[in-house]
């Protein structure tokens, strides 16, 4: 078949669209983990965001209320996690897993009344410019505001962590909570804030799925994307730019394998479906194999509880 340049543009645009929820959730989780907290509840927070966004959109009819409501829902459910791990000093791993199970269950319960309702159309920006430049236009124009935000987020996150004072504080808390505490930093407060921020981003990622990407509510609709997002954070060695690369590879291979199937490439389909998972991990491991850099960027106190009372 002839591959024309607009076709390539369309494929890249769909790859980017599929990467959005991963980027959002991963960048949120990255901040949480940089402060030393391991929250395995991403999938749960995401699905809560998905049902909250969809429910609010259906009930209030306002997309703005729905998007911010979904983020707020992510914040609220992550508050439970924050309270348990930071105030009651519970184990991060166990609490995070519980959060996921809780989120999936409660979203199914709330969602009972929202099954089988079509979503609303979400407005896109620069629609009129979509056919102006070949290849570039379908990539740049005609997307939702969340899409543009997601692609700015890794750069903003990078800037925040490297160039701002608050970013430095977050990293300090994650690397050595004792020293940070001795410097007069309220470790628990910083960690609370980072957990809630992670919750907000996961909630937004969920809302993107249920309101923009596939506008509908069905149970378990996040389909494990929260776990992929978590894996991206680790394999990117806590680097937001590498998260962007990883998310694009993962989304890209998922979509390209469908194209290969449709073209009729004779590779076992099971292998093609497994490809995104395998290649994403390999690529991220290869580009992050510098052990000195891994040591530098891994939050030293990740997943460890901090006991000092402030």
């Amino acid at each position, binding site marked *: 078949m002839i591959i024309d340049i607009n076709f390539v543009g369309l494929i890249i645009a769909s790859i980017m669209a599929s990467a959005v929820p991963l980027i959002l959730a991963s960048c949120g989780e990255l901040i949480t983990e940089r402060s030393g907290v391991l929250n395995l509840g991403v999938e749960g927070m995401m699905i809560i965001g998905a049902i909250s966004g969809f429910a609010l959109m259906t009930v209030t009819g306002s997309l703005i209320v729905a998007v911010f409501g979904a983020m707020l829902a992510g914040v609220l459910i992550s508050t439970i996690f924050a309270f348990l791990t930071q105030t009651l000093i519970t184990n991060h791993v166990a609490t995070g897993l519980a959060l996921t199970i809780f989120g999936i269950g409660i979203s199914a319960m709330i969602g009972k009344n929202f099954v089988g309702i079509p979503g609303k159309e979400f407005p896109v920006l620069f629609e009129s410019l979509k056919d102006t430049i070949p290849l570039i236009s379908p990539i740049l124009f005609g997307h939702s505001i969340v899409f543009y935000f997601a692609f700015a987020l890794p750069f903003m996150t990078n800037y925040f962590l490297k160039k701002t004072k608050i970013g430095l504080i977050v990293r300090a808390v994650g690397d050595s909570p004792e020293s940070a505490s001795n410097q007069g930093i309220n470790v628990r407060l910083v960690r609370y804030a980072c957990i809630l921020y992670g919750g907000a981003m996961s909630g937004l990622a969920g809302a993107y799925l249920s309101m923009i990407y*596939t506008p509908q509510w*069905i149970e378990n609709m996040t389909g494990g*994307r929260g776990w992929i997002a978590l894996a991206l954070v680790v394999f990117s060695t806590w680097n937001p730019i590498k998260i962007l690369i990883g998310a694009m590879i993962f989304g890209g291979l*998922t979509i390209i394998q469908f194209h290969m199937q449709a073209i009729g490439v004779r590779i076992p389909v099971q292998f093609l479906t497994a490809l995104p998972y395998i290649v994403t991990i390999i690529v991220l491991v290869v580009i992050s194999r510098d052990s000195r850099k891994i040591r530098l960027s891994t939050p030293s106190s990740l997943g460890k509880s901090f006991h000092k009372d402030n």
Partner: protein
Amino acid sequence: MHKFLIRSFVSSLVLLFTLTVAAVAKDVKAAFVYIGPTGDHGWTYQHDVGRKAVEAAGFKTTYVEGVPESADAERVLRQLANSGHDVIFTTSFGYMNPTNKVAKEFPNVKFEHATGYKREHPNVSTYAARFYEGRTILGTIAGTMTKSNVIGYVASFPIPEVIRGINSFTLAAQKVNPNIKTKIVWAFTWYDPGKEAEAAKALIDQGADVIAQHTDSTAIVQMAEKAGVYAFGQASDMDKFAPKAVLTSVENNWGPYYVDRVKAVANGTWNQKDTWHGIGDGMVVISDLDSQMPADLRSKVKKLQADLASGKVHSFTGPIYDQKGNLMVAEGKTADDGMLAGMMTYVKGVEGDIPK
């Protein structure tokens, strides 16, 4: 005073006992085991609609959702059989062995297994729907409505049920339009809106202007709506999700069968059966035909529907050739149920190989 207390205690015990006996004698309790959540708006959702019909007919029902097709299924079945259920419907192919195993342990409980073929004990029946009849109708519509002559098909897993659907669809489409090509994409999921949408998008980007699906969510018809191509609803009427894209839907209608079987248990007339119902018996329902379809196509489809229902037309009427050109069904013959149940080869005109 003591006497009074004892007497009232004894009499209430007696009353309770008679009530329980009466309840056991009269009420039939039906249980349903689901593979997915009832909120999937697809396969399990439609079974649950059927369960509600049983409830509406005056019987008590319970259901367990999200039961994996593993040893867990046996545990759930045993528990349901132990807790006084008279008939248990197991609604996924993978429950076949657990159903037969547990049925042996509970000869007084009736078991009804969907889409399977094993009936190892007299208390096990099987039932399935001839969805391929619905796909004959979809293929006829797709072959007529396509302009690019490329039809996309999002498939789930390579099992006879899905292969049969692809073949039936392609044969019907070829009959009205010999130039069409059916492009298949395997999503390897029954149910993941994101993945399903991506699969549909890939097919649309490659020129498909009609999309059929054998996965459960509404993501595909929504993607078709966005891209301005046609699509068909799966399991339930999906028209409201994509009013412009959806031309019609094939609906699964289990209710009448379920009510029938539970009533048979109540009357004591239940017997072992293998049921395979199609459009004629109302287990497969074609939703309203969209007004975008030309009037003559609509009347053609109506006639086809009636002929499939009466048995005048069979979805697999020869001559049918496989991809290599070998004769599968001779001219004037129709495929028998044995061949349909084990169908694992594509017919001529389908592109690609079946994943192994």
